[in-house]
């Protein structure tokens, strides 16, 4: 790797520190504002809060209905991720291990979905869900998320499974294990690391998604976090104390989890898009 003289080392640290400050400023201002009242936000924008109004958190949490939004985001993301992991790994397993007519065509059929940005199909998706009485339901949202994440998940999992040595499965097959047993008891545990990459990539994408809930969800009781915050912003216009606190409550748990699991997150989110 690069060898550096002392001077360039200093310069690089300087660049990295400046960049880090740029990352932190907006977030820390938001964090500070979340403790201030409206007047203080406008009059002393740069200072620490004179008094940490923890009560802001309670008010904003209630007003923005964050309990519900968190529950919705959690249930939708987790069910979608588990669902897509299951159905995609089943397809990936077949593609990696079985030889049958149209195998190549099936694979191309599925990964061609990587070339179709999901939101472009929103009108028919909207109509399909409407006709199935699944519009404005979490179930509808989950189905759409699962369906649109299949190509990516199959792609990653198939390539990973192909690289797993086949010997263990062979001996299980000789012992008379069924395909389902071999898949669930041998292949899935061996594919753990790829499953984690897919799970993180898909989870973060769904958790942060705004477009599909915006169009497919109507009632307040089913809003996911990005939609709930967006509606809250529409309702509370210039009440920046409430808005800052709600916004901060919506993002800081994510940042904390990211810090705890940053290695897996970074691996999942960068490899997911590139590999």
């Amino acid at each position, binding site marked *: 790797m690069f060898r550096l003289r002392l001077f360039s080392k200093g310069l690089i640290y300087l660049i990295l520190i400046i960049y880090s400050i740029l*990352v932190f400023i907006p977030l820390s201002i938001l964090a500070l504002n979340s403790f201030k009242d409206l007047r203080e936000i406008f009059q002393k924008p740069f200072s620490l809060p004179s008094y940490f109004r923890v009560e802001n958190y309670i008010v904003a949490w209630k007003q923005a209905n964050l309990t519900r939004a968190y529950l919705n985001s959690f249930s939708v993301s987790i069910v979608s991720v588990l669902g897509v992991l299951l159905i995609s790994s089943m397809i990936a397993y077949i593609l990696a291990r079985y030889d049958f007519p149209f195998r190549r065509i099936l694979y191309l059929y599925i990964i061609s979905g990587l070339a179709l940005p999901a939101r472009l199909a929103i009108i028919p998706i909207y109509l399909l869900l409407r006709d199935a009485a699944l519009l404005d339901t979490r179930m509808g949202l989950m189905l759409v998320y699962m369906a649109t994440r299949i190509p990516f998940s199959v792609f990653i999992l198939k390539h990973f499974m192909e690289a797993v040595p086949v010997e263990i499965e062979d001996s299980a097959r000789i012992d008379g294990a069924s395909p389902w047993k071999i898949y669930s008891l041998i292949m899935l545990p061996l594919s753990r690391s790829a499953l984690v990459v897919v799970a993180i990539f898909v989870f973060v994408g769904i958790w942060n998604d705004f477009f599909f809930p915006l169009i497919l969800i109507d009632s307040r009781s089913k809003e996911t976090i990005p939609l709930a915050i967006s509606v809250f912003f529409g309702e509370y216009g210039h009440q920046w104390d409430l808005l800052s606190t709600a916004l901060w409550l919506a993002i800081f748990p994510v940042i904390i989890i990211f810090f705890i699991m940053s290695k897996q997150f970074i691996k999942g989110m960068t490899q997911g898009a590139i590999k």
Partner: protein
Amino acid sequence: MKKEFLSIFLFIIPGVLLYTIFVVYAFGFSLSLSFFSWSGVGPKIFVGLQNYQKALVGTYSTEFFGALSHNVYFFVLVTILELGLGFLLALALATQLRGYRVFQTIVFIPNVVSLVMVGFIWGMLLNPQMGLINQFLRSVGLGDFAKPWLGDHNIALTVIILVNVWRNAGFYILVLLAAILNIPPEFFEAAYIDGATNLKITWHIVLPLVKPTFQILTILLFIWSFNTFDLIYALEGVQAGPFRSTDVLGTLFYRTAFGGLGSSCMDMGLGATVVTFIFAIVFPVSILYVYLIERRS
């Protein structure tokens, strides 16, 4: 053998069905809708190429080409800034000096925050009267530079692009960093023995070897740029103000198909036409993307 086909069938059928209905069928249906005029309820009226005519030369064309040109501007600027900044910071991190892992984590933080929420954070910071940016400029005596950042039609789109860079740069930094760290260390050793400077090494070794990664990232940026929506929605609303100066195909589509505030007509057919155009622009590039990543694996 027959039993084997049955298990193959049962393994693939749930995913294939779901994918076929919500992705393949939905796409086909969307393309076909572009030949109809339809508000979403009642009968569909077949109008042939009328929607396309409207978009390309008719009443709708000013808005359409305005939005399209903003997508192009978005793509060009975002690519230059995010890949440029990404490569510079990737180089800085690739020195692996002490603590680089901490910085690696820090640069990625904005990426885990939802784009709409990034939009709302910056919307407050950029507010002309109460926003911190203008307050800061005034307090250090640079009040002349204070601007209605999102309300000036000359700069609003560029400002939004910069917010996008703040959110996404970390991704490009880390992807490029991974590509640089993939280069065998012997290449560096050999170059140093030959007396090469870091600048020369960057230019003659690192850049050529990272080129495939740049290609894939540019392709992704292209696809994402023509699908951009969230930030503009959060910062300017579906009317993509001021005076449509931040309108992109995504917001134009939303207004057309689902009706934004103030636009009374809801035309799913015309909306599907906008989608077809986005599709026509993005699809060849997406195919290239699938080909490239499939070849890499």
